[in-house]
């Protein structure tokens, strides 16, 4: 779990969820390789690893880019279970994809059984302002209700792409530090833990 920084850098596992076509792969590829692919190729599941500097500390990030479809339900749970943080993506140009975030949130909570799992709500394709269907206000409210942060991104212009990944990793890191503390002490129930987010952000 939390390895001493002597040997291996810390590893944070991030999972991209959201309906098909919202830009999960685009965001991932932009973050990983600074590239943007115009054509849409449905993903089954892809995984990436990158070494980065997070506030001066070298860490590794594992990103799992999943399929939006329901076809892989059994497989999906296997991935969700192993995720330490989630980027829940929708497209601001597509109302349906915003509605779907509700389902994804529920699935994640069901599998992780943890209200405070590191999680960001991400409204992608914010470069397409003229096609916007989901208002900033609306999305922020949902995020607030869940106790998570809302960020708008564009995989095309790279706006806030790094931000969502780094912010999430900070949450994961804080979460792990807290976990270590409590597991050294007595507290064992994840669900009783207080939210850390407010202090971080």
């Amino acid at each position, binding site marked *: 779990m939390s390895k001493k920084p002597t040997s291996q850098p810390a590893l944070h596992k991030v999972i991209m969820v959201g309906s098909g076509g919202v830009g999960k792969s685009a965001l991932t590829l932009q973050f990983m390789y600074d590239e943007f692919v115009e054509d849409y190729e449905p993903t089954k599941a892809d*995984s*990436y690893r990158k070494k980065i500097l997070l506030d001066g500390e070298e860490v590794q990030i594992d990103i799992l880019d999943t399929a939006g479809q329901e076809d892989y339900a059994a497989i999906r749970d*296997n991935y969700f279970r192993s995720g330490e943080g989630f980027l829940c993506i929708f497209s601001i140009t597509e109302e349906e994809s915003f509605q779907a975030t509700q389902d994804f949130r529920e699935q994640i909570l069901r599998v992780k059984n943890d209200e405070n799992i590191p999680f960001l709500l991400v409204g992608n394709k914010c470069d397409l302002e003229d096609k916007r269907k989901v208002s900033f206000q609306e999305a922020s409210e949902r995020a607030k209700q869940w106790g998570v942060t809302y960020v708008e991104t564009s995989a095309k212009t790279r706006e806030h792409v790094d931000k969502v990944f780094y912010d999430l990793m900070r949450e994961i890191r804080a979460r792990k530090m807290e976990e270590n503390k409590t597991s050294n002490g007595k507290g064992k129930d994840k669900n009783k833990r207080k939210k850390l987010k407010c202090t971080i952000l």
Partner: protein
Amino acid sequence: MEYEQSNVIKDFPGLYASESQKINNRESDYSEDEKLTRKDLLTGKKKDKKDKKDKEKGYAALEGESSADEGYEIRSPTKSKKSKSFKFASKSKEKREKSRDKEKDFADKKKEKDKRIDKKSEKEKGKNDKKERPGDIAEELPIFGVPLELAVERSRCHDGVDLPLPYRACIDYLQMYGLGFEYIYKISSPKSKVLHLKKMYNHREFVDLAEHDVPTITGLLKMFLRDLPESIFTSELIVRFEEAGAILNVAMREKHLKILVGNLPPLNYMAVSWLIVHLYTVTLNEKSTKMNAQSIAATLSSTLQISQRLLTALLCHCPALFVDVKLIQYIPPLISTAQLPDEKDLMEIELKKQESLLSQIHSEMNAGFVSKQREELLWEVQRLITQLKRKIRSKNRVVEEKGIEEKVSHENTGNSSENLETERITATKKKDSQEVLNTVPLSLNNSEDNLDLNKKEINNASIASENVEVKNIEWDFPKPTEVDQEKTANVKITQEIESKSVNTLQTEDPNLPLLANDKEIMYLNLKNQTLLELKNKLIEKMEIEKKEIARLKLVLKEVQYKNQTEPVIIDSNSDNLDKIMELLQNENQILHIKKINLVRKIMEEHEICIDLSAKLMMLTASC
């Protein structure tokens, strides 16, 4: 069946038993000191054999173990379910990490580390994974001691060769290190060593057989075979194998063994063919292995639950029986993105392997075996797949771009595009003539599809008079290989004359005398026709038989139902009944063999008839 097998056992029990006794003695000598130093472990081991109840004790033993100083033996005794899989998991993870980092620890250092991590993981994971872990994968989804099909499914070779991993690994190892080993298969290793390896496989641990000696690996292979609930020759076919193995006429024996081998289900065929080909190479290296077909048969027939005679026969006919079987060494999926191949073909092969591995991980997880290590592996494999796909895609892009460039250059020079045109035309021409010729093998292909139906049919037809139980009807007859051979012959011939007939088409001179090859074609065509007619007739008959089978089944069901509703009072004199049963069974056996011989004769006569009539037709045609 019964009498054959009892004969088998009569044939060699002395030899084998004495051998195994020797082994047992040797084993106890060998491991005496182990027993003394780790008494507690061994008592645990004994219990472990068939006792899962004693979990509490297992836990206690575990505490003791951590202070023991040998990594291997620690793992074999009884442990509580949970702690066991932690241990294994952390070790396999460690191996992966180790090989990835190319870290070179000294052996004992490593062992210490193992232990440390083991302990740590017990503490750490104990709380997190408890709820997800239903039990021990080695107990709930073992690889040894389950039907071949399950063993393959649970421990795949990810290169598409459908053999259980330990089975393949043993053969790989023995092909590499065993062919120079004197008395291979005869010399045994301590059972504890073999059991330890079996346990590692059942736990899905990383196993490096190269660390072990030849007797241990032969022992492991033997154990796998012995643990199988069903013979690899299948209980349906094994009697027939024995019958075929007992045929005196060498050519006939070979022919029948070949048919039987061809009738094995794919997975069994795989297992049988690899094993026999491997054993055959052992006998080919008799000078260094000191083992010939006879001694191999004497050593292994009881393991395989077949007679020495049959095993000897299989070994002697091996080259004819398994013509295309090549033992390919298994290269497991890569474990690091750093080693990805650069060639497209290799990348695609690797991708298939990784995907196969991925689906195995998923199915293990879906069966409830979730551990930190398996999750780690899941992400890792997924990452490899992603990288491979990216690499392949970029390769494809490069190829595509090149293709476009070439096209452009062609279009620019009018001359070359014309050339292309003409080339294409000639190509289609060639194709046309090929198609005509291909009709022959094609139709044969078609008939081949129906062959196993035919088989049954012929049986039914020819033995209709004999009162044999429905089960026995599926006996085969020489047909399939015959047609097979013909088919290949046909294909060859058509290929040979392809060029010639293209020429004849071009010259279009009907007055030219028929070439020898043309005659052959004509002859084969005629024969083919008759065979096709025969096929149709047989299919018709088969339909009738099928209906009859369905009808009989219904009757059977009714009778069974009646029997259920009106329980028959069983005669207390069941001893007598048993004897009668035995007698009847023996009689049936004899009738069965007679039937087989008759079927064989009928088919041979039939073949001759077809051959003759084809010749006859040809002669009348050319007159």
